[in-house]
């Protein structure tokens, strides 16, 4: 047998079987596809992760007439972000190598990045004492510490061995106070404001309903006065804390020689990049990565964290799933199990398939017109007349965004659910019916559990699409900066009418709408990585559930 085979093979030497090249051809395209995906992911991964890695700070001495110099100073210091050749060559047609330095101190220099020709550098070194500080504004500061002036007037110079400890403590105090201020202003004063607003609304509602306005007014005024008093007390507390923030002052010297000072309350964290060991760098890396995840954004989103966007994306995707899965599954059950298969069902199916191909912005416009203006506007008219003309549901919000996304992804769920249901064998259905089950009992107990893995596949596809979408969301509720999270501790806890932030929009906003796109670039990469990570985590969770179900419900083979 094997000899015969060899003979046949031998006689065909030099010629391949018909279609053999197609194997290679089709394989090649798959390989190209995979390669592109791997390349894309690795670019995002490398760039996104390296954002948090503390880079050494290079100090350079420039030639006398270097264009890169700031004013008369011959020194610059910063993190090397790029090593490249200038786009324009010199007169001889030779390439000019250059580096890009992140020099920080945007408040002083007016720029945070500077390109320096290699030929302009006289001397370079990595000074041990140089300090990188994260501040509330103007991005990072890169400078030498000079001294720290404490609230009680004591001064600790940078040479002192207690300096590091004192600075750490001072920065911690500042951070603590900042949290407290934010708690007072956003939390407690927020509560008072809400209560005041509530009274106003009650009054207005009373007027609209034609009740005894004077009586309500009297009661309200008394309470209003109480609230006002409370508010003033809190405001005073916040002001006091703010003043304390300026009591401690940190003095520093730029590499250019200029000495400056900053309130400690303005600082967030600091580190000596050139002194860090590998473990120190790792620690710094994780702490920065963590604060990226849990902090709120600062400075037009280009600094700080992305927590509200992460949270908004997660919550929206979840609500979308809650809306889309039952809707799509029930529709698919009708189409697959109950509807008489004929022309009408065929047309409906084609229509559903085509809906999946409608551009997402169309859904956005529809969501804005139908959900926001029509449905939301009607809800406002009916339930919140006292708040008008300010809209409550009549403006973009979490609910409308989730509904729009659900509408956009429902065809995906219907199609995959139908497929899943039809994969449940006739034998199963007949066995159930023969046991005296009704059609619905058969669907409920046999068909849906059997089709569940496929239904979850549809959900995964819907989630991936919903979480990654930007265009329609811009119309129906996503904003650059939302003051509050859509879920918080204030009753009713889930605020479906609130605007929210979304990672996809965050990326767009950072990369293409921020004033300093160069400064925002690391954040764009990190945010992109996070969005991909979020989608992967959501999908992985769903796949895990699916596999568990598949093991449970896999049809047996003999």
């Amino acid at each position, binding site marked *: 047998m094997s000899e015969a085979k060899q003979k046949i093979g031998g006689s065909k030497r030099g010629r391949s079987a018909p279609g053999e090249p197609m194997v290679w051809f089709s394989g090649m395209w798959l390989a190209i596809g995979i390669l592109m995906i791997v390349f894309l992911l690795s670019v995002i991964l490398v760039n996104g992760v390296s954002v948090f890695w503390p880079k050494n700070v290079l100090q350079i001495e420039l030639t006398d007439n270097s264009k890169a110099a700031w004013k008369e100073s011959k020194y610059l210091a910063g993190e090397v972000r790029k090593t490249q050749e200038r786009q324009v060559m010199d007169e001889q047609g030779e390439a000019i190598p250059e580096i890009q330095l992140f020099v920080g101190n945007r408040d002083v220099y007016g720029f945070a990045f500077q390109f320096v020709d290699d030929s302009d550098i006289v001397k370079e070194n990595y000074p041990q004492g140089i300090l990188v500080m994260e501040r509330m504004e103007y991005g990072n500061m890169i400078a030498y510490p000079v001294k720290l002036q404490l609230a009680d007037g004591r001064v600790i110079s940078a040479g002192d061995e207690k300096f590091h400890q004192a600075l750490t403590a001072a920065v911690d105090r500042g951070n603590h106070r900042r949290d407290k201020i934010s708690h007072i202003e956003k939390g407690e004063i927020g509560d008072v404001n809400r209560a005041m607003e509530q009274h106003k609304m009650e009054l207005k509602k009373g007027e609209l309903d034609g009740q005894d306005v004077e009586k309500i007014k009297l009661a309200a005024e008394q309470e209003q006065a109480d609230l006002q008093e409370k508010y003033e007390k809190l405001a005073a507390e916040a002001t006091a804390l703010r003043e304390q923030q300026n009591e401690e002052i940190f003095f520093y010297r730029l590499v250019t020689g200029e000495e400056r000072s900053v309130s400690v309350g303005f600082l967030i964290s600091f580190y000596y990049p050139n002194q860090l060991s590998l473990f120190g760098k790792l620690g710094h890396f994780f702490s920065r990565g963590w604060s990226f995840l849990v902090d709120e954004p600062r400075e037009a989103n280009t600094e700080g964290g992305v927590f509200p966007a992460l949270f908004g994306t997660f919550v929206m995707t979840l609500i979308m799933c809650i809306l889309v899965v039952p809707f799509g599954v029930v529709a698919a059950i009708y189409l697959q199990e109950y509807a008489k298969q004929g022309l009408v069902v065929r047309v409906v199916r084609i229509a559903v398939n085509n809906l999946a191909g409608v551009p997402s912005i169309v859904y956005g416009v529809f969501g804005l017109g139908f959900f926001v203006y029509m449905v939301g506007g009607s809800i406002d008219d009916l339930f919140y007349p006292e708040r008008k003309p300010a809209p409550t549901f009549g403006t973009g919000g979490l609910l409308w965004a989730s509904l729009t996304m659900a509408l956009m992804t429902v065809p995906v769920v219907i199609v995959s659910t139908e497929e899943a249901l039809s994969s449940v*064998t006739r*034998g*199963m*259905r*007949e*066995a*159930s*019916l*023969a*046991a*005296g*089950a*009704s059609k619905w*009992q058969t669907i409920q*107990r*046999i068909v849906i*559990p*059997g089709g569940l893995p496929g239904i979850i596949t549809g959900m995964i596809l819907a989630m991936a699409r919903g979480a990654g979408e930007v265009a329609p969301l811009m119309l129906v509720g996503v904003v650059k900066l939302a003051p509050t999270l859509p879920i918080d501790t204030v009753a009713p806890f889930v605020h479906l009418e609130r605007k929210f932030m979304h990672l996809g929009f965050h990326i767009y906003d950072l990369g293409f709408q921020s004033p300093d796109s160069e400064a925002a670039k690391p954040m764009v990469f990190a945010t992109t990585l996070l969005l991909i990570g979020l989608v992967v985590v959501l999908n992985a969770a769903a796949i895990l559930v699916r596999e568990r179900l598949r093991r*449970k*419900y*896999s*049809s*047996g083979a*003999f």
Partner: protein
Amino acid sequence: MNLAKLEPIAMQKENVESLSNTASLSSALLERKNQAPGRPDYIKVSNFSFNYVPAVRVLHNITMDIPEKQVTAFIGPSGCGKTTLLRNFNRMNDLIDGVSQEGKIYVNDQDIYDRDLEVISLRKRIGMVFQKSNPFPKSIYENVVYSLRVSGQKNKEVLDEVAEKSLRSAALWDETKDRLQDSALGLSGGQMQRLCIARAIANRPEILLMDEPCSALDPIATAKIEELISELKQSFTVVIVTHNMQQATRVSDRAAYFYLGKLIEMDDTTQLFSNPSQKETEDYISGRFG
């Protein structure tokens, strides 16, 4: 074959009167049937014809009586309509679009195509075992008690008792009693088919329909199931479709030979196989044809 013929209309009337009380009906029936030789008929088919799509007639004027608590085998070449007839007894053919039928089928003197009859209640009275074993992707226990679950039975004790009794009746209890909560899909082919039998009899149906139950099984598993069928006929009226004539002789009391949608001959199994009255039957059972 010379069993008492009932007037269908009179029977229907009687049916309506005593629908709610099947016990008294069957005792009345028993009394009447005692006069006739053999056991009382349980399923009566009279002038029954069946069409898949209006033009394709697969059963022609079948008239037959199936006695109670005996095994009746349907034999015949493929496509002769024996499975179609079997699936009409519990109206499984309703699931197919465009079917139509003429004539009547009575189960325990009740017209199963009566408009007042709920098909679900009919199916609860008739268990069915399919050619390809089709356990649900659930635990062994849940498979057995499925028919009770869909009837709304929630009492754990009742369910446990039924599960054990059914599995014992299906000769599967000893093999599965320690792993009732395991997936039914982990059983062997023969065990799966016996599980399907246990599931079919869990509801204590009156009739057990078996559509080539052994066609996918090895000889040992087949022998087990055949043995089981002989035991089951103590409690149930069994109708079995089979391609295997040895099997028919081994398990059945009566046999019916179908050919091209017609009932050629029906008689006691020994009689049919040893001394068939029709030429076609003889050709088929002697292997000259089919």
